[in-house]
């Protein structure tokens, strides 16, 4: 049995204790090296112990989890965020294809996350995701947010501005990029709808999410049609028309 070394960073003792308890009870392969009650301690512990896995609370006094990550030199660990409630944080985490747990932590979710961490460990790609997260967080004006798109054996970081539109194909999604690239992802369009910032991306149809900055022309009709910057014509469903018109500023 492979053991994974882990560090927990959380400012609330009850959180730390409860997580520790759950790991002990359900994930024997996790060996907790140390628990830290604030970010400063966390940095020290990670740089010192270079753990396989870090459970990191997002919201902490003085220095939060994200800032702590920026300050790390060593990033080759699997990262699982823990958070009580923070929609914004969760979205950022998902965009970078990082894992997270919501408090109070459900045991089965915890086991699953640990299991994933064990597999990803071999891929050594975690640093990129953390970098992407940091990148997105630093880019306060959302200009160059990147989306981590997992594929069979790698992770691709795509600047959201380059996404022209996304098309649902049963349980998969095709992402059309500028210029003339297409990524085929085994995620549903609905997942992306949650992930992508609604200020830029609009669901115009049960099969399409488009980047409104790539709309070149709108053709009137029952729902109408949009011509995207790559020349593709997409239908706007009748139900979505009003929403769409509002979004593009009519």
């Amino acid at each position, binding site marked *: 049995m492979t053991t994974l070394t882990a560090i927990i960073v959380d*400012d*609330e*003792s*009850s*959180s730390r*204790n*409860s997580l520790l*308890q*759950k790991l002990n009870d359900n994930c024997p392969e996790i060996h907790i090296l140390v628990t830290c009650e604030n970010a400063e301690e966390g940095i020290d512990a990670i740089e010192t112990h270079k753990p396989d896995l870090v459970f990191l609370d997002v*919201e902490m*006094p*003085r*220095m*939060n989890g*994200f*800032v702590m990550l920026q300050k790390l030199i060593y990033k080759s660990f699997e990262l699982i965020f823990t958070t*009580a*409630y*923070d929609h*914004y*944080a969760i979205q950022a985490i998902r965009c970078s294809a990082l894992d997270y747990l*919501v*408090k*109070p*932590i459900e045991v089965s979710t915890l086991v699953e996350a640990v299991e994933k961490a064990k597999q990803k460990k071999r891929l050594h790609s975690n640093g990129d995701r953390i970098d992407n997260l940091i990148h997105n*967080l630093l880019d*306060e004006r959302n200009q160059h947010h990147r989306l981590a798109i997992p594929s069979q054996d790698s992770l691709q970081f795509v600047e959201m501005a380059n996404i022209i539109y996304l098309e649902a194909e049963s349980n998969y999604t095709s992402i059309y990029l500028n210029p003339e690239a297409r990524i085929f992802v085994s995620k549903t369009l609905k997942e992306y709808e949650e992930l992508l910032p609604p200020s830029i991306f609009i669901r115009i149809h049960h099969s399409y999410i488009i980047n409104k900055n790539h709309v070149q022309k709108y053709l009137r009709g029952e729902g109408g049609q949009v011509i995207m910057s790559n020349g593709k014509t997409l239908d706007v469903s009748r139900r979505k028309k009003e929403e769409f018109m509002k979004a593009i500023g009519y």
Partner: protein
Amino acid sequence: MRYALLALNFLLSYTLSAQLNGKYTFRHIGTSDGLLNSTVRGIAQDEEGYMWFLTESGLQRYDGHSFVNYPEILDVNPGEIWWVLYADQKGSLIMWKGDKFIRFDLKSHRFTAHTAEDLFPNEPPAPGVEYFEDGNRCRLDSRLWVKYEKNTGNIIASALNYNLDLKHATCWQAFDSTTGDFYSFEKLVYLQIWNPVTKQRFSSALDPSTHPVIKEWNKVKIHGYDKMMIDSKRRIWFISYTHHVYRYDLNKEEMKYFSLKVLADKLGKDTLQDARGLIHFMLEDRQKNIWLATENVGLLLLDQEKDEFLCINSSEKIIHGLRYNYAIRNIFQDRDGNLWLGTDRGINVFNPYDNYFQIIRNIEDEKKSVPKFDIMDVIQASQGEILVGTWDGGIGIYDSEWNYIRTVVFPDIPQHNQVWCFIEQDDGTIWAGCNWGYIHKYNPALRTFTTDRPPETMNSTILRMTKDKNGNIYLVLRNGKIAYWSKKDNRFYAFNEQKSAYNKHPAFVSNIFIDQSGRGWSALDQCLLEYDAKQLTYINSHCAPDSLSKYDIRYITQFNDSTLIIGLRGNGVYLFNKNSYQISRPEIQTHIAYTTVNTIKQDSEGNFWLCAGNALYKCNQDLSEISKINLGYNALTSDFYELASIYELSDGRWVTTTPSEIICFDHRLIQTEESEKKDVLISGLTIMKEAINVDSLLSVSDQLMLPYDRNFISINFTALEYLNAFDFTYSYRLKGIEDEWNSTSTRQAADYTDLKPGEYIFEVKAIYGSSESPITSLPIIITPPWWDTFWFKSLCALALAAIAYYFVRRRIQTIRKEAELKQKISETEMMALRAQMNPHFIFNCLNSIDNLIQSNQKEKATTYLAKFAKLIRAILENSKTNVVPFWKDMEALSLYLELEQLRWDNKINYSIEVDPRIQNGDYKVPPLIIQPFVENAIHHGLLNKKGSEKNLTISAELQGDNIKYTITDNGVGRQQAAEFKRANRSSHKSFGTKITQDRVDIFNKGENQSIHIVDLYDEHQNAIGTKVEVWLTTQSETT
């Protein structure tokens, strides 16, 4: 000498006999047309042009189509029968009887009764005075007043002188403007002559008299004079109660008398035993012809040359002839020159002057008139005789003035009497082509007929004959073939018809036209046939294109050297180019598109005349203009009869025929310029089924103004055409609801129902063929009800708007204030709830409980869970109301603090101090109003602080009317906390304090500064915490 003259005159009068019957065409208006009574006493025309008839059953207005009746006249002086009618020039009709009269106002349509005395008001009565003179007035006898101009002696008015304006019609007085003599009868027996200038008065009663007229008068010695008239030649006509008419010529100073007895005797009438009333009326018309209306002898016209009367009688046998039972009572000439005769059998109208056409037709049982049988053709012999060929009636022969000479009927064979056409041989012999190929030849010198039947006619009826320039004759046969008579050989030939494909029977055959080059043109049905007239052979046929193929060719003649003009059955004319065989249609075609053109004749000026249907047309040389010729009223017996051909008499007159009449006219005299058409008059108005006097209405205003509820209108109109032979129609429209013209001919009225309020213009005009009258307009304004007028509506709208504006404005202001407040409150409350329910806090609390469970601290977990539940309950309950009792709120705050403390492992110390007056008093506060400050103190102030001693103090005290909260922490201070926040790029936006601020403001109604935050420092200016002070206005439950 004078006796001799008189005797001569007596002799002359015996010639008074020539008949005019049949010369004029009369129109009859009788009771079946709407006349109230067949005895017409008076006829007049008002200034607008309406005709007025006075009958024994009332007064009537006539517009040429319909009557308007005024029987009320019978109620004025009941029992009186008014005898005389005339229109004065002051807008009245005057009706006289004896010395009484009625005035009828043409505008108000009211009758007023008068006596002759009314004409001379304030005249002092002079009983017993026969002759009385005063100023410019003179009373000649008990009834007769005369008013004259003092300087000139002209008579202005006289009682009994009912129609001074109509100078040349019979009445009881006459005025000779040359001498200034005024003639009147004295006691119906004596003639008196009075001169207003010389004041001389002569009377036949004072015998002997020095006046020449009275001298002559006395010589005649016949009493019973009725009326007199002075004509334009200064001849005074005296009409007696007997059948005598006396005439004294003031210029020649001679008397003549006419006896109608002679004429009556000639007419075979035995009704003269009662000679009284024989002559009713005399008129000299504007053409200076003198007409006499008589009893039993009819209408007489003075033949000015022979100085004898010509007679027109009533005859049932004459179509459109004069009709009366016994008497013609009066004669009136209207402004169009029509003569109106009032008889005992209605009215007769005719125009003896507007008539270029002499109509000659059969008179029933009159052997000396035109044969009754269908008239086929007319020809004039070289010696002047006119031959009229009939179908089945042989040939009638007349002199050149259409006086009957004889009828030639051929015995034995009926077909001999079925004449179709005539032609004159160069030697003067007249041929009559008949049925079955017979030809009668008439020798005009010997006046004898011979009959021939050449075999070349193949026993076929000879329909038409044509002579070429060499005198050869071509015969068009019913079988569609052509026979030829050579002048040189004096024998007949048949045309070589081998190539002709036509052998139809029966066929419509046209005439044959031989052009200058010897090409012959004839037609069978729709096809034009071309012949070589010299070689007597058929050459070719030119059938019309499809568009014309159903129309038979009726007539062919030359249009110009290269072109023929072809008349069609039912489709006007076309032009045929003999060289190119091209067909074209001239401009005039549109006017005669559906007409049958039977004959086309070019006059010496180059104009083409067309016999088209029942009308005669004249076209200019290039066929670009066409005008219809007015044949006169009722010229044709039937509209279905067509004009067949045109024949030119030796004196240049033309003759055309229909089956029942011969129409002779001089085309050179006919004026085709359309006379200016009169305006159409609005003759009546019916509003809501009620007839309105349009004259009085339009005399006040030139527009018709009606209220909205009187908007069913019927408008009658008339062109006042009494004798127009044209089929004229009216076109009308109501501008405002229609732009298209409506057409009507039978009903001279337009109906409009339910007109909406607005302005309209009714327009009407009369259309006479190609010309039309000016448009008559009647503006109609339907006024809206007062509550629907623009002004009222505007006023209402304005007032409403003003009131509404005032209220709305006031309301808007209050609503806006309220809404602003309400929205702020609701928003704030919502936000407050959210702030209180900070999910982070909730989930963290839950996480803490989870931990207690994980670490088996059962008791603690239960306690913690209970407190959490209590807090959530408090929050949920409080969220329903805006205010809660102070103590309750403080309880919730304590719970919150306890939970936070538990979460942070009791690292935070807190204390709460509450003024017991508040705690126990009846104070209300917004729920969890200071919770956000407490949360801030913990999270930003205390938790960011390293090390221990995290203290939080909360106090509440009464300060005047306010509850004052103080929250003091010894945390890092606001500045430090902000720095941490910035470093974390925290996206978590804290609305807590902002919302609280708003809530407090709302609660305090923005009355004072209610939140105060103080940063605390030690003596070294290090931050040692924050103090927040909140003031709330006290509010008790009862307020």
